[in-house]
C-alpha cells in the first residue's frame, strides 16, 4: 500500500517534530549560502533555530526575483564540486531561475517521485511511458529517476510525435503514462484518426497528469477517453519539480510530502496564515535539500489545505488543485510563461509598436497562444514579403524565449486597446 509506510503514516505530532528537526538542519545549511548567510547573519534578529513549526513565521519570505537577482550561485550552500545537476527555467531575457542539486538532493527527489508514483498505484511491474520534455524541464528527468527508483520499466519517450508515442505504447505494452492534460486530448485525437481505441488497443491502466492547471471536468474527460484513472501531479521547479504533491487512489486532493516540505498557506495581501480549508498562496520551505535550500518560498500558486484525514491512511495533508496565481504567469503546454518575457522580445524589434495582446485560445482541443502585434506605421513598406518575414522572425524569437510556438497576428496600429498603467495583456479564453 505504501512506498515508505512509517514516514507516510507518521502520526501528526511526530510528523511536526520531524519537520522542526529538519527545518533546523535546513536553516544551518541555508546560512552557508551567500544569500541566506547575509540575510540571517547581518540581521541578527532571525533565530538560528525554531522550537515548533510555527516558529517559521518569524523568518522572512523568499521570492522569485531574489533567485534571479542572486543568479547563478547566490543560493548555493556547497562548493560546485559537490553539485551534480542543475535545472533552470527557460528564457533568454534576464536571469533564469536555477536550482542546483547534490547527490543527496537527487536521491531525495527520486525517492519522493517514486513515493508519488506508488501512491497513485504505479508498481514495479508497470511499463511507464514519460511523455514530457527531458532536458532542463524538470518533468522529464524528475519522473525518469522516480520510475527507475520504483523499479518500473521506463520509456523516456519525451514530448510530441503522437504517432511514435502510440507505436511505443503498442510495441512495449505501456501500462502507465505521464503527460500534460492538454496533450492527452491531442493524443486521443490521433488514436481516433488512426482508427484505434486506446481502451481496446493498448494495455494502459493509469495516467499521471500535471505541469499544467486543469479542472476536474478536464480530468473526467481524459478518464472517459482513455478508460482509466488520471492522477493529478503537482510540482514546481523551485521545489525540485514533480514529486511535491500527488493524488492517491481516492483522487481527492494531492498529498503534499510534509517530511520534505514545510507548507504554509497565506493570504497573499496580508501574508498572514489562513486556516486549513481556506484558499491562499502556497508558501513552501524545503526540508530535505542540501545544495539549494529555500526558506518560505512564495510559489504564487493559489490553493488550500483540504481539512480532514484521507481514507488512504497517509497523514501528510492534502492540497487542492491549483486554482490560480497571484502573479501574471500563465502555463501553456506545460511551459511557464510570464507576459514580460514576450514583451521583452517584442520591444527589441524596431518594427513593432508599443501595444500587443496575448490571447490564450483552444482551437480544436489544442491550447494555443495568439499574439496580436502592432506594426509601426513608419516601418510599413507596403510589401507582403516584409511582413511575412517579420511575422516569421517574431514567431521564432518568441518560441526560443518561452518554448511554445505562438501564432503571431500583425494588426493595424491603434487597433489594440491602449496600455494604461497595469494593462491586462493576457486574455485567457481556453476551454476548461
Amino acid at each position: 500500500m505504501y512506498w515508505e509506510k512509517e514516514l507516510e503514516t507518521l502520526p501528526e505530532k511526530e510528523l511536526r517534530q520531524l519537520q522542526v528537526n529538519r527545518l533546523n538542519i535546513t536553516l544551518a545549511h541555508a546560512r552557508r549560502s551567500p544569500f541566506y548567510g547575509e540575510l540571517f547573519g547581518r540581521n541578527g534578529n532571525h533565530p538560528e533555530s525554531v522550537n515548533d513549526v510555527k516558529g517559521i513565521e518569524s523568518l522572512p519570505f523568499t521570492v522569485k526575483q531574489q533567485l534571479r537577482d542572486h543568479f547563478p550561485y547566490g543560493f548555493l550552500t556547497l562548493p560546485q564540486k559537490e553539485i551534480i545537476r542543475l535545472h533552470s527555467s527557460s528564457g533568454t531575457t534576464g536571469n533564469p531561475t536555477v536550482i542546483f542539486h547534490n547527490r543527496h538532493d537527487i536521491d531525495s527527489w527520486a525517492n519522493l517521485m517514486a513515493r508519488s508514483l506508488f501512491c497513485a498505484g504505479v508498481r514495479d511491474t508497470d511499463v511507464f511511458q514519460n511523455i514530457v520534455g527531458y532536458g532542463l524541464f524538470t518533468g522529464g528527468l524528475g519522473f525518469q529517476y522516480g520510475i527507475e527508483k520504483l523499479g518500473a520499466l521506463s520509456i523516456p519517450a519525451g514530448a510530441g510525435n503522437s504517432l511514435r508515442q502510440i507505436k511505443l505504447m503498442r510495441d512495449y505494452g505501456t501500462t502507465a503514462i505521464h503527460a500534460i492534460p492538454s496533450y492527452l486530448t491531442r493524443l486521443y485525437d490521433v488514436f481516433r484518426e488512426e482508427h484505434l481505441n486506446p481502451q481496446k488497443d493498448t494495455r494502459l491502466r493509469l495516467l499521471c497528469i500535471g505541469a499544467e492547471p486543469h479542472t476536474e471536468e478536464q480530468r473526467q474527460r481524459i478518464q472517459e477517453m482513455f478508460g482509466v484513472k488520471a492522477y493529478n501531479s503537482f510540482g514546481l521547479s523551485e521545489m525540485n519539480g514533480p514529486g511535491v504533491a500527488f493524488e492517491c487512489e481516492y483522487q481527492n486532493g494531492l498529498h503534499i510530502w510534509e517530511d520534505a516540505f514545510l507548507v504554509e498557506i497565506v493570504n497573499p495581501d496580508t501574508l498572514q496564515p489562513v486556516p486549513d480549508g481556506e484558499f491562499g498562496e502556497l508558501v513552501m520551505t524545503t526540508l530535505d535539500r542540501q545544495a539549494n535550500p529555500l526558506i518560505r518560498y512564495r510559489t504564487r500558486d493559489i490553493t488550500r489545505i483540504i481539512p480532514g484525514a484521507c481514507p488512504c491512511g497517509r497523514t501528510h495533508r492534502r492540497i487542492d488543485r491549483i486554482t490560480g496565481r497571484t502573479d501574471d504567469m500563465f502555463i501553456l503546454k506545460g511551459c511557464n510563461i510570464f507576459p514580460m518575457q514576450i514583451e521583452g522580445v517584442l520591444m527589441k524589434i524596431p518594427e513593432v509598436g508599443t501595444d500587443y495582446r496575448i490571447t490564450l485560445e483552444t482551437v480544436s482541443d489544442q491550447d494555443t497562444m495568439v499574439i496580436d502585434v502592432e506594426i509601426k506605421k513608419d516601418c510599413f513598406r507596403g510589401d507582403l514579403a516584409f511582413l511575412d518575414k517579420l511575422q516569421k522572425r517574431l514567431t521564432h524569437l518568441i518560441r526560443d524565449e518561452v518554448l511554445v510556438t505562438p501564432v503571431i497576428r500583425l494588426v493595424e496600429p491603434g487597433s489594440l486597446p491602449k496600455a494604461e498603467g497595469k494593462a491586462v495583456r493576457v486574455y485567457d479564453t481556453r476551454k476548461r
Partner: protein
Amino acid sequence: MAYQVSVFLENKIGHMERITAVLKAAGINILTMNLNHTTGGWGIVNLLVDQPELAYRQLSDAGISAALRRIVVLPMEDKPGSLDGLLRKIAGAGINFTTAYGRSGRGTAWFVVDTEDIPDAETMLKSAGLEILPDETVYTLD
C-alpha cells in the same frame, strides 16, 4: 516614376471602409486596385489612384499604415492574347514580379506591375520592347 498606394489591412469586417472613408473625404478616385490576404489574417490593398501622394498623406495622417510603391503601367490592346504577348516580353526582360493587376478601358487595357523591389525595371522593360505609360497618363486612365 508612377506610384501606387499600398495599405496594410486586417482581414476583419469594416476595416477596408476605414481606408475608403479617407479617400472619399479627400475626393480621391480609385482607377484600379487589388486586394490580397495571407494566412496570418492580414493583407495589403494596392490602390492605383488619381492623386497618390495626397492619398498617402491623408491615410498616414489618419493613422493608417500606407506606403507609396513604384509601379509601371503597361498598355495593351483589349483583345484575346494581348496579356499573353505582354507577359512573354516581360519574361524576356528577365523580370520576376509578385504584385500585378489590370484594368480595361475602351479598346485599351493596362497591366500594372509593382516594381518597387526591382531595380532598373523600367530600363529593362523598355529594352525588351515594351511601352511604358508616361506618368501624366497613368493617373488619368480612361
